[in-house]
């Protein structure tokens, strides 16, 4: 029954997408892959609208799907037959490749049908999807930066998930691989190079990276399918000049962005291509407008909820409380290099070693051979598209970010290889051998994301899926623990991205938002003593009446400025904080009140590396006598340089002190308890701590000091309830 629901969810989604594609294209293009991929863009857009309207219900999806299918009159399509009729002729080599395709797709199908255990699929791709279904649409999510990415694929997942849950979503992604491979074959046939198309498709389809990605609830293969479909549609339009294709081209290009931010190049490619070929503003405007229709919802959603249309990136252009600039820089910096010492290591790492999160297959070391295709116009078009869709690659050098340009490279390779008799077949067969899961297992390090053979009993859910989860999803026991030990509606804080697609609880992962990072710092300072506010920076100046004070930071460097408490004194007595005080800070003004709340565990943090122009300011709302300002904070802010200014009532600012006197303060007592209470105040109910985390020992041994209660343990994790 479960398998039936999964298959129904996937097939109904693909059928609805195909129907919408048919409605958009009419008779302009009859190929299923084009109609499916284009219709997926339309379906994704419609599901977005339903989610934005709070109408995410299986019944609403059923009505939408049935209406689209009926309106597209598929019986007419069946009567008309397929769009391309000159299929590759049966021959020994074609049959051999067909068998190889079948075997690999069977492996992929079993994996997609099995319980979803992919790293990102089981966390944010389907975690957010499940949340949208539970909540019947979008709600503001500021605690998870992944909710701010464009989620065009998640909208398709949502449609499938409503009927078939997790595995249905993975199967929908697999449908994009079928569409891509099919489309590559059609491209070869159209250009009288059927063998090139088939070999190129085989190089892509058998790649371990492509296989594991396509059979998971990811979006990279979908983007590759969009890229290649767009390429074909533009070619089709350029040959036939069919104006009806222009809106479809725009929708497809916009869908590229909606699928994944890196797909923005699809919009540039489509607009550039149409402008170059047509030189007509109207044609370009149609493409741009249709693309914008699919891009705009994601921009608007982020603008409304995250104050940044391009969240979680470009935070220096759109400052917001949810993602800090220093985090963005660190995040991007890691993905630009992973753990490589040099970019020259990328080819080997991505094709053989698997140290970039997967392996494309050793045969792709031969990709430079494809440059021979540059001699032909078609080859040049393929390489241009490969360059465009690979343009973002160096912003994240993960192997799966090479999937979108891969079809173009593979076809160029096939063009070159087919010039030598038997060579293309030999390379494809070698590829099939080297990409076999057991062989890949010997090539790549343990932990690298790769395909394994899925027992059919697991695939068809004939065995307890819990066993499968535990074998393939290391952190699944922690999720089971959370489901078992916490009431619905609970919020759990953790330092590991657990598979939250399998829990309805709100999971806060330490790095996934600025607020989570603050909670993490509060916890870590209490547990392991990092950033304890034991430093004192004391500005002393002749007593005088002031209307406001301002602490300026004047240095540049990599430190991030932080203040736990800012206190102002007169004759040894602290000025009581008053409601009339106006607190401001630049940058990151949103948490400045945390430096004036008398809590040592909370803090204001600049959220970006220090530079001149940063300040914290207190306007008293009247004249106050003062002679000392003390900043309490971490002792290791060696790079900051501070000066103090005062406003004397005439609007003029005067320097009160050039530099502070540095000293240590007494450590705060009850810091752990205060940290736990502050986390609770911030909406966190539980902390999930893993044995291999350095802070786990402290909370385990000092539960009384924290005031927490251990409510359960599983899989190396202990769940603590906050006081």
């Amino acid at each position, binding site marked *: 029954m479960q398998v039936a629901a999964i298959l129904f969810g996937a097939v109904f989604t693909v059928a609805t997408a195909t129907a919408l594609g048919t409605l958009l294209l009419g008779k302009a293009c009859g190929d299923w892959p084009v109609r499916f991929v284009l219709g997926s863009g339309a379906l994704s857009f419609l599901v977005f609208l339903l989610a934005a309207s709070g109408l995410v219900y299986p019944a609403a999806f059923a009505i939408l799907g049935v209406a689209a299918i009926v309106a597209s009159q598929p019986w007419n399509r069946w009567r008309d037959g397929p769009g391309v009729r000159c299929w590759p002729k049966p021959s020994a080599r074609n049959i051999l490749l067909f068998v190889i395709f079948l075997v690999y797709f069977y492996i992929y199908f079993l994996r997609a049908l099995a319980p979803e255990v992919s790293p990102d699929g089981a966390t944010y791709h389907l975690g957010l999807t499940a949340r949208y279904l539970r909540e019947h649409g979008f709600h503001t999510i500021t605690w998870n930066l992944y909710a701010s990415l464009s989620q065009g694929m998640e909208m398709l997942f949502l449609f499938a998930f409503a009927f078939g849950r997790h595995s249905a979503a993975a199967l929908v992604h697999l449908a994009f691989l079928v569409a891509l491979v099919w489309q590559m074959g059609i491209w070869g046939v159209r250009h009288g190079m059927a063998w090139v198309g088939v070999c190129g498709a085989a190089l892509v389809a058998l790649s371990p990276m492509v296989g594991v990605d396509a059979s998971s609830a990811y979006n990279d293969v979908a983007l590759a399918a969009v890229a290649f479909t767009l390429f074909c549609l533009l070619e089709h339009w350029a040959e036939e000049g069919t104006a009806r294709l222009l809106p479809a081209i725009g929708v497809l290009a916009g869908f590229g962005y909606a699928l994944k931010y890196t797909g923005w190049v699809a919009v540039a490619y489509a607009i550039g291509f149409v402008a170059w070929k047509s030189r007509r503003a109207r044609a370009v405007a149609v493409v741009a407008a249709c693309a914008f229709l699919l891009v705009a919802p994601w921009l608007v959603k982020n603008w409304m909820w995250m104050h940044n249309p391009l969240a979680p990136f470009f935070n220096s252009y759109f400052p917001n409380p949810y993602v800090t600039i220093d985090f963005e820089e660190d995040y991007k910096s890691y993905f630009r290099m992973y753990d490589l010492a040099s970019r020259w290591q990328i080819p080997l790492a991505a094709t053989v070693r698997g140290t970039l999160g997967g392996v494309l297959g050793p045969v792709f070391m031969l990709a430079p051979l494809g440059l021979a295709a540059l001699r032909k116009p078609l080859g040049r078009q393929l390489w241009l598209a490969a360059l465009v869709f690979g343009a973002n690659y160096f912003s994240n050098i993960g192997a799966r970010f090479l999937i979108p340009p891969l079809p173009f490279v593979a076809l160029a390779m096939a063009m070159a290889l087919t010039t030598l008799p038997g060579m293309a077949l030999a390379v494809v067969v070698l590829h099939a051998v080297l990409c076999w899961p057991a062989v890949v297992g010997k090539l790549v390090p343990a932990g690298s994301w790769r395909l394994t053979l899925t027992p059919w009993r697991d695939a068809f859910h004939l065995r307890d899926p819990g066993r499968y989860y535990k074998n393939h999803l290391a952190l699944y026991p922690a999720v089971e623990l959370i489901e078992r030990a916490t009431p619905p509606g609970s919020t759990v804080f953790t330092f590991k991205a657990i598979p939250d697609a399998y829990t309805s609880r709100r999971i806060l992962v330490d790095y996934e938002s600025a607020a989570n990072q603050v909670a993490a710092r509060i916890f870590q300072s209490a547990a392991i003593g990092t950033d304890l506010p034991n430093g*004192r920076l*004391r500005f002393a100046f002749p007593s005088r009446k002031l209307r406001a004070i301002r602490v300026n930071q004047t240095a540049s460097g990599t430190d991030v400025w932080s203040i736990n408490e800012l206190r102002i004194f007169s004759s040894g007595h602290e000025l009581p904080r008053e409601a009339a005080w106006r607190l401001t800070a630049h940058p990151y003004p949103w948490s400045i009140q945390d430096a004036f709340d008398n809590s040592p565990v909370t803090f204001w943090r600049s959220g970006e590396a220090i530079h001149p122009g940063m300040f914290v300011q207190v306007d008293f709302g009247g004249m106050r006598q003062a002679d000392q300002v003390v900043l309490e904070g971490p002792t290791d802010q060696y790079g900051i340089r501070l000066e103090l200014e005062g406003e004397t009532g005439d609007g003029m600012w005067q320097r009160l002190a050039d530099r502070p*006197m540095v*000293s*240590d*303060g*007494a*450590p705060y*007592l*009850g*810091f*752990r*308890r205060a940290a736990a209470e502050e986390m609770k105040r911030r909406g966190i109910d539980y902390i999930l701590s893993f044995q291999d985390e350095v802070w786990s020992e402290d909370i385990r041994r*000092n539960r*009384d*000091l924290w005031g927490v209660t251990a409510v359960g343990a599983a899989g190396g994790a202990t769940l603590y309830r906050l006081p």
Partner: protein
Amino acid sequence: MSDPSASAYIVGGFRDQSEGAWRWTHEHPVLQFYVPRVPRLRFLMDLTFPDQTFAQTGPVELTIRLNGREFDRVRYVKPGSQEYTKETPWEWLHPDAVNTVALEPDKTAAGPDGERLGFVLTRAGFVE
């Protein structure tokens, strides 16, 4: 002791002027600390018996009184820096109130101007 507000923790028995990050004690140094309601606090201090004074006093026995009750008695047989830490019985503390800690050396050395010098205190207080 480098905390400019360190004087707030001193009841008596110390040199008036701070030497910076440390202070000389006299015969009966007494400190005071506000202690919140926190279980399992430890009393901690960093102290030094300089060679010059140790040459006069020889081994020193330090009696530590917590809120007037004898909490510990420690014998220091060598000069130099020492770290002392011991968990305090919860029932001996006054939570959410000021608590006094008296540090009484059994011997002191003669300093300039006739003052009696016990030891040098760098850091003292309760920690979790």
